[in-house]
């Protein structure tokens, strides 16, 4: 159908971003192809080493699934997106395909080993999340392709992660967000992935900050170095949600908090996390 309708067709998943964009006339598709009636596109499956989410799986379904207790950062994300009503409709596949710089899922999945399965008229291909997102509102999807599944590897033993977003109130996009995934051995951080959201055209991996903590004990000094690198990696724009400098400070603070929670979770502690409101 997409191949027939061409450029002017848009896929409608949960519609919680697309319909508002259409009302503002930022999106003006001639045809909408509603994916909500496709049977079997919403599922959460656990394999030996990964979770697989059908593209049409709603945020609320991920939020309430017991399975994701194994990857707490996914719960932080699913339970924090907007509000109940939006989570009842919005989907993980739609969020990724929209590639909104302020979206939550892409930022979180940048810190995990996550792959997007793309299905098109010429077959199927699997792309890592970081390759999938090309630019603001732009993905590798061709006109005749859609997201069919998102697969997330279960992190190795000793891992912990956390996702925090800072926003004015529940339904709005965050001012800044931070996803951290660590692997600890005792007090030493063996591996780290840090992704920043809403402070660039795509989620940003803070590689210098990751290097600053990798192989280190997470002392005050090490953390301070990492946070400095986070602020340098952020590339925010000033807008109604705050000035560029303000967002740099916020994202640094979020990474610090997320790292502290990630460390506790890596030790096996249960820590409940919610999005932070102004």
């Amino acid at each position: 159908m997409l191949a027939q309708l061409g450029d002017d067709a848009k896929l409608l998943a949960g519609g919680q971003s697309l319909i508002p964009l259409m009302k503002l006339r930022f999106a003006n598709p001639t045809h909408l192809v509603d994916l909500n009636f496709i049977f079997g596109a919403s599922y959460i499956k656990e394999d030996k080493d990964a979770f697989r989410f059908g593209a049409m799986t709603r945020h609320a379904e991920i939020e309430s699934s017991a399975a994701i207790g194994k990857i707490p950062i996914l719960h932080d994300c699913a339970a924090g997106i907007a509000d109940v009503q939006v989570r009842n409709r919005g989907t993980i596949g739609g969020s990724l395909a929209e590639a909104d710089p302020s979206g939550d899922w892409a930022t979180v999945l940048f810190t995990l080993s996550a792959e997007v399965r793309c299905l098109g008229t010429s077959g199927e291909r699997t792309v890592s999340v970081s390759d999938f997102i090309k630019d603001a509102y732009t993905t590798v999807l061709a006109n005749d392709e859609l997201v069919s599944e998102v697969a997330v590897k279960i992190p190795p033993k000793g891992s912990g992660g956390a996702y925090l977003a800072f926003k004015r109130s529940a339904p709005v996009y965050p001012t800044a967000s931070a996803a951290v995934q660590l692997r600890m051995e005792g007090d030493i951080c063996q591996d780290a992935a840090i992704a920043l959201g809403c402070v660039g055209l795509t989620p940003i991996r803070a590689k210098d900050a990751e290097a600053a903590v990798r192989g280190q004990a997470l002392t005050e000094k090490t953390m301070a170095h990492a946070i400095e690198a986070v602020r340098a990696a952020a590339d925010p724009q000033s807008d109604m949600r705050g000035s560029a400098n303000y967002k740099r400070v916020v994202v640094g603070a979020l990474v610090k908090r997320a790292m502290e929670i990630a460390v506790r979770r890596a030790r096996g502690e249960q820590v409940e996390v919610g999005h932070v409101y102004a």
Partner: protein
Amino acid sequence: MPDRIENISVQLKVNGKSYSRTVEPRKLLVEFLREDLDLTGTHVGCDTTYCGACTVLLNGAAVKSCTIFAVQADGAEILTVEGLEKNGELHPIQKAFGDSYGLQCGYCTPGLMLSAVQLLSQNPQPSDKEMRKAIAGNTCRCTGYQNILKAIQAAAQNMKGA
């Protein structure tokens, strides 16, 4: 753009009653409920997916009816504020909103009550935190949230064993 957009037929149940209509594909569910079915209890507040005044239950799940097309509700069961009352008896949530002074101007009230109904259907004895999370998508600009929380708590008590 195509010259003419054909209307699409939809069949759905609203408040237990079956309806069969044809609608413009671009028509939003909230407009369909208000204009085509004359169910004006569901309000349009911001029309930007923010305020939650248009909240209805779609197959039991709270949704913002300004952010879903009417055609997407084909085959669905919708509950609006008009469907809360049964045989002339107010729903416990409606009684509780009145008794606890959980409304001032009343504009946000239908949406808030439906968010509360979804919460109580899944979690009959919610904590304060759970209640706050459940109504985070409903804006009350009279700032009456404390009494709204009291109302939900009271409804939960009254619905015990119901």
